[in-house]
């Protein structure tokens, strides 16, 4: 009874303090949007090239490092941003040329391992160029809170959430409305069909890796502004992975909704149940949550019923 009571107690807590709950939920949504942003990077690349890009996390770090590094060297913020974008696009070209093209038609697991290799390389490279110490990234928005209808809202988190929301919308439009976006969707379903549209696979890969790089940059800026640009940034990729189980490797809406769900779930669990088990459960809770969800709904969030053919 005691153990069960301890497990159930947080519900009473929630009911007792709805305002706090709301704050927790808002925090969860904000974190969730960031997860969604990182997850989007995965989804874009996976959808277009079938590559499980483990380097997405290190791309976040690398983008943020580059931006901060440039700003530290006195480059104006906007120019630094433009330069970083250029660097990320250049990186996409380099990856396509050096890693993807020679490995075309290899088994997905080989490509996956190659992206882990890429992770090592970028980590070493980033640190070599920009140094290994923690850097502050000032985006001009103070990390302070204000009250709205009795709720404590963090300015930075709000800005991050808004940016994420805007980015997600832009990407959705990009996929729905532009020619290349449609080609990207097609390529995910059928490589040959995509080729018949007339866009070379090579171009598609460069585009998705560039877009993923930009998404990584956005995530890097927001995360970096919040907790400083440091090595641990590359680990947020791991946080985005449960989102992929939940939302699917190829679903853009899945990544967004999944991200928010994971963000909220994780925050709630951390705040209300974490103390019961000594805390620090955010490392694994998201995974367990995603798995639990799968047991109930095997096809995931937006997956259709799977009909396998023989």
């Amino acid at each position: 009874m005691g153990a069960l009571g301890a497990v159930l107690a947080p519900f009473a807590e929630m009911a007792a303090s709805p305002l706090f709950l709301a704050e927790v939920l808002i925090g969860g949504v904000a974190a969730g949007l960031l997860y969604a942003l990182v997850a989007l990077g995965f989804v874009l690349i996976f959808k277009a090239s079938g590559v499980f890009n483990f380097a997405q996390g290190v791309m976040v770090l690398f983008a943020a490092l580059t931006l901060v590094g440039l700003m530290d060297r006195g480059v104006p913020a906007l120019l630094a941003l433009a330069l970083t974008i250029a660097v990320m696009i250049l990186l996409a070209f380099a990856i396509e040329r050096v890693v993807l093209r020679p490995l075309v038609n290899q088994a997905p697991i080989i490509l996956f391992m190659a992206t882990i290799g890429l992770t090592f390389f970028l980590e070493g490279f980033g640190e070599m160029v920009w140094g290994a110490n923690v850097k502050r990234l000032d985006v001009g928005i103070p990390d302070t809170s204000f009250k709205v209808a009795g709720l404590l809202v963090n300015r930075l988190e709000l800005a991050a959430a808004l940016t994420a929301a805007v980015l997600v919308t832009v990407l959705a439009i990009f996929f729905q409305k532009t020619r290349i976006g449609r080609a990207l969707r097609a390529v995910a379903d059928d490589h040959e069909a995509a080729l018949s549209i007339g866009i070379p696979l090579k171009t598609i890969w460069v585009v998705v890796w560039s877009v993923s790089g930009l998404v990584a940059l956005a995530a890097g800026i927001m995360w970096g502004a919040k907790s400083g640009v440091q090595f641990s940034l590359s680990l947020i990729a791991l946080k985005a992975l449960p989102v992929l189980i939940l939302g699917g490797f190829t679903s853009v809406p899945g990544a967004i909704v999944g991200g928010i769900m994971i963000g909220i779930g994780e925050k709630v669990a951390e705040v209300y149940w974490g103390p019961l088990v000594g805390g620090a459960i955010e490392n694994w809770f998201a995974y367990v949550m995603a798995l639990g969800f799968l047991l109930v709904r095997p096809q995931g969030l937006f997956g259709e019923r799977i009909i396998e053919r023989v």
Partner: protein
Amino acid sequence: MIYREAGQFKSTYASDQAIFPIPQDRVFVLLVAAVALLVPAVASEYWLQAVLIPVLVYAMAAIGLDLLTGYAGQLSLGTGGFMAVGAYSAFKLTTAFPDVNIIVVFLASGLVASAVGIVFGIPSLRIKGFYLAVATLAAQFFLVWLFNKVAWFVNYAPSGTITAPPRSVLGVMVTGPEATPGARYLVALILVAVFALAAKNLVRGRVGRTWMAIRDRDIAAEIIGVRPLSAKLSAFAVSSFYCGVAGAELVFLYLGSAETLAFDIQLSFLVLFMVIIGGLGSILGSFLGAAFILLLPIFLTNAPHAVGLKLPVALAKQLELMAFGALIVFFLIVEPHGLARLWQISKEKLRLWPFPH
């Protein structure tokens, strides 16, 4: 070229299905075994401690992961977690029952890991491929977190580390501070040899075919009569057993003491690298992969010195990381099927020499 196969004919299925059907290979294997047994007599302590022991220990883990990923086709990123289970089980068991032979403790730890592996293998019945890979991360993070948080696992040691207590086999100290590298090496060698043989036996027989059937064509396999539940969970069980024993060995024979950090996600990736670089679906590849992945950083660390380059420590570290990553990518491009395939091709070339194919 070396092979002389004319006149080697098989008159029983047993000889036709032998692991090494060609006599020349049997001779070669015996030679390797003899050399491996004689190594402690000649190798320096550094080589034993820094190279040979870890190669053997990691090879054990790589075999475990290879059974799961290479043979049964279930991609796992939870190796570190399963190894942690083995290590902490061994620690708990040997401190609780100090009189039990440490080898028995290792095996028992493997069984514990095996049970944990089955539990975390359950999602494989529902999901495949990268979904499963991500799901196995749950095992990785949860298990490491568990051992970190629950002080019982470390016998409430304030440092949070587990330390290998001194234990002997046949009167020779094999773990703990007094165990010589040679003794630890021999234990690791014998364990990995025996279990590599067992793994080979498994994969060439009924259960191996079940796993490979699931890997190659899961639907056809099911229609042939393979039960996915038993096929996949047996793969998780056997694989985790190997990882568990490897985890115990890692602490008891190699590191001496460890905290949970030793079993983090990096370890999972390291072992996965070994399996991929070694060659999926090859027991031999697990050894080659382990050797390659462990020797590469040693080589990279020493390379600048060798050419007389003096680099700042931090820069050397970063360059090493870059070189490691770049070499991995390079290797995957050059030989995506791994060292075992290279070995196999060279062997075929030798057998067919002077013909190219």
